[in-house]
């Protein structure tokens, strides 16, 4: 029986395993050094905040794996020998594979800041990171202040987490507004306000120069690049993005760049070795997507696709329209299609913001053809299915505005904003 070995038990690897099991009777082994069972990485924050316990973040009960004949192996792979199709583990044992799927995910970026490896300095990606957070920032007695470096999705989550335990947070953001390299300015500004509303000391256009140590090798303070200001703190969160976690692949024959280089079939340069999820790097970017997409949904989709290829139906990774979501403190965010921070060439933005509440949308469309390109929505839930369809049908922007109520996904009895949005859109046409 063919042995499929998957390195990594995150969403990518586990989705692949589940689908391979659905399609075949192959022997499946998932390897992880992180946790015994699959858990939802995106839910780590809720464990620290006390919304859930670790066990609640496991999407499948522990009996699931045995029932579905998916072997779980705890271990850290040291070396991948692609000639003999053997994995060598840290503890000296080995495992033979017939087909290998690399799904090792990401690791937090460190940009060579002095002091970046001190105790109390860390990212937030793995279960171990969460455990360490409990050591260095369990409460505001142990951690008088925390500094977060990097204004992205993990940074703001970490701020919310620490804030939930009343730990004062200073949040250093390189951009002029939060996540401004992804969000249009109006939206970024709204999130700035949301961050400050929760009592976070938000510092925009501020970079980290160095992290200082106390005599025990633990973080004592950080120095700001621009002003030279020293901020005393007991914890530093490094959240300036992630990059593929491919140290175990580096010393093999498998071709790597920033990530494990794959073609559209998620195949590496070595026969029978594949890579999916955060650690995979497309030879050529697909549409507006980046060659490396460290996104939950991408990992899941690649897992769905690779299972087809492994089971004899060689299938390219061909994702449909881009979508994503996040939550910034109390503001939910969803996006469908592409909205750029500044409209792309020949594109235009339509922005609507509620006067008092934290709700807004931005629609990107083509200036001449008026084709709808994408929407960002904050504080209003919208239907994925409807936007996916409208994008496929290349609907014009006024169709989207006119039919916006069909895409609403807010709970029943919620206030509706379609008419305000329509009104603003019509006025825009008059003034344009």
């Amino acid at each position: 029986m063919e042995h499929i070995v998957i390195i990594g038990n995150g969403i990518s690897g586990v989705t692949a395993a589940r689908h391979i099991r659905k399609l075949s009777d192959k022997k499946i082994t998932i390897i992880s050094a992180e946790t015994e069972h699959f858990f939802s990485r995106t839910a780590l924050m809720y464990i620290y905040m006390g919304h859930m316990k670790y066990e609640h973040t496991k999407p499948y009960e522990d009996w699931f794996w045995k029932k579905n004949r998916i072997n779980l192996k705890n271990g850290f792979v040291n070396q991948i020998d692609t000639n003999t199709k053997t994995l060598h583990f840290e503890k000296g044992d080995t495992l033979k594979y017939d087909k290998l799927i690399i799904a090792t995910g990401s690791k937090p970026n460190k940009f060579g800041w002095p002091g970046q490896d001190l105790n109390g300095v860390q990212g937030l990606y793995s279960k171990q990171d969460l455990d360490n957070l409990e050591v260095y920032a369990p409460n505001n007695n142990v951690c008088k202040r925390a500094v977060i470096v990097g204004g992205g999705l993990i940074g703001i989550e970490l701020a919310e987490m620490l804030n939930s335990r009343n730990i004062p947070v200073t949040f250093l953001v390189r951009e002029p507004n939060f996540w401004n390299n992804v969000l249009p300015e109006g939206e970024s500004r709204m999130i700035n306000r949301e961050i400050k509303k929760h009592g976070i000391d938000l510092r925009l256009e501020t970079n980290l120069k160095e992290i200082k140590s106390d005599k025990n090798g633990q973080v004592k303070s950080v120095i700001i690049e621009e002003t030279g200001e020293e901020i005393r703190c007991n914890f530093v969160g490094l959240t300036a993005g992630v990059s593929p976690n491919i140290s175990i692949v580096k010393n093999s024959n498998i071709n790597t760049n920033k990530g494990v280089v794959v073609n559209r079939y998620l195949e590496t340069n070595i026969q029978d070795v594949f890579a999916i999820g955060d650690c995979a790097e497309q030879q050529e970017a697909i549409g507006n997507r980046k060659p490396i997409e460290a996104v939950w949904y991408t990992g899941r989709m690649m897992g769905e696709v690779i299972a087809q290829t492994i089971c004899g139906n060689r299938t390219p990774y061909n994702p449909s329209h881009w979508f994503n979501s996040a939550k910034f403190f109390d503001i939910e965010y969803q996006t469908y299609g592409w909205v750029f921070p500044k409209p792309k060439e020949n594109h235009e933005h339509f922005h609507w913001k509620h006067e008092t509440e934290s709700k807004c949308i931005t629609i990107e469309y083509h200036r001449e053809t008026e084709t709808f390109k994408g929407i960002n929505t904050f504080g209003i839930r919208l239907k994925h299915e409807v936007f996916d369809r409208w994008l496929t049908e290349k609907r014009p922007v006024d169709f989207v505005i006119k039919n916006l109520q069909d895409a609403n996904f807010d709970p029943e009895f919620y206030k509706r904003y379609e008419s305000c949005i329509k009104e603003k859109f019509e006025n825009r046409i008059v003034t344009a």
Partner: protein
Amino acid sequence: MSYKSNHSLSLAKPDAYHTSIKQKLFLAIGLLGLFMMGIALFNLNILSGWTLTLSLALMTLGIGGFAIDAYLNKPEGIKNDGVWFKSISSRGLWGWLTGVVLTLFYIVLYFYPQYLGLAKDGNENSGLVALFDPLSRLLNGGPASQWFVYGTLYTLAILAFGFKFLLKYRHNRYEQLRTYSVMFFQLAFAFLIPEFMSRLNSETFSLPYYDLKNIWPLNYYNFEQYRVDSFISAGNIGLGLLIFGIVSIFIITPILTYKYGKRWYCSWVCGCGGLAETAGDPFRHLSDKRQVAWKIERWVIHSVLVFVVLMTTAVIYTYLGYDSEKYWLTKDVFLLSVGCFLTLIFALTIIFKRQELGKDARYGAIGYFIIIILLIGFHYATNGTKLFLFEAETLRSAYGFLIGAIFSGVIGTGFYPIFGSRVWCRFGCPMAAILGFQQRMLSKFRITTNGGQCISCGNCSTYCEMGIDVRAYAQKGENIVRSSCVGCGICSAVCPRGVLKLENDSMKGRINSNDILLGNDVDLMDLINKK
């Protein structure tokens, strides 16, 4: 300190979760009110007539003040920080203590009301019951009973903790309206109207105590002889109420459940649901999410339903006559119609919904159907006095004790801090079983999932008071159509990615299942999902 350390049982919990000084103050005020009631138990009525007023006021103030400080000082949004760290809400010491005290209270209430001060044989009440006499006289003209005490405290709990819930979910209009609704139905229908109704009673006119929204079979005693006699002897009004009771379960309930799902009752109207959604809210996440719990749930709740149907049939049967000249509804007519009705429901389900039943559901349905029909047949064959092997009175008292008192009261509410707030609704309530059966088979209600947006975080499953593994559906892009869902809407509220929505829509395509979620290759989706 690692994440593994159990915060709830340790002294060193994260600082943010220490209750603020203001909250402690209001907690003390509330407890003082409770303490005054405790004192009354020992007949130490210090402030005489004012004790009850003051005690109720202090408890209300305590809960209200606590809620205001806990929620209004923070921005609107989900307020679940530290839920699993707090002793009271994570089966810690306070949780267990509260559970024990509540359980003891229920045991005394149901089985030893004399300890609450209930008088026997026309004597004056004493203790806690006597404390409530003035309020009882004000409302219904008579002295209090232990049930009046319980009803008052129950209503107070729904109103005060309902206020707390309203503040907690002040950003969510669905939760707001639903909570106003249960508060209204408890205060008006369960508490005030029945009390005022009993004021109308006189020597010549008497209605049984009737909470109009309490529908058979939740109200398992509604068709007992003393009540039916009383209804009939009370003329047109009584007859109207009796008919309303029958119409409630056979006409109103099916229509509303078809249109809105069982939530119209369980989380908008029902008193048990009302308490669970308000006072029980801090414990909703303690429900058991394991698949094995779901299996147990299905057997237990449907067994209770069979039990209540048999019991009620037996009880009604005993007081009906043999002679059709006196009254058209004789023993035979009644038993035959029960048999026909059950056969009809069974046949329709098997014919039209066979594919939607799991294997165990099919076995269960067939098994129970055969048992009931055999029992009816056995009765005719032997021509005995006992309808279902037991005397009707034995069935009635067994049901009242096991289900009415132990299950719904002692376990259902007493164990809130241990098993979560909906143990009774999930495992025991026969009304929920009927509504749930219809919700699963014939209703427009479902929880819709939003394409491929689920991140499997587990907030929905964790905060489902009915123990439904919502995530298991959401991460497959599958609508949630489950008998047990009471439509509280919390899964949708706590979802950080806007994936879940409670909806009433057409029956077509209500139950869907996708192997591959939206967002991936459209051709692949077509290939896999439409095979």
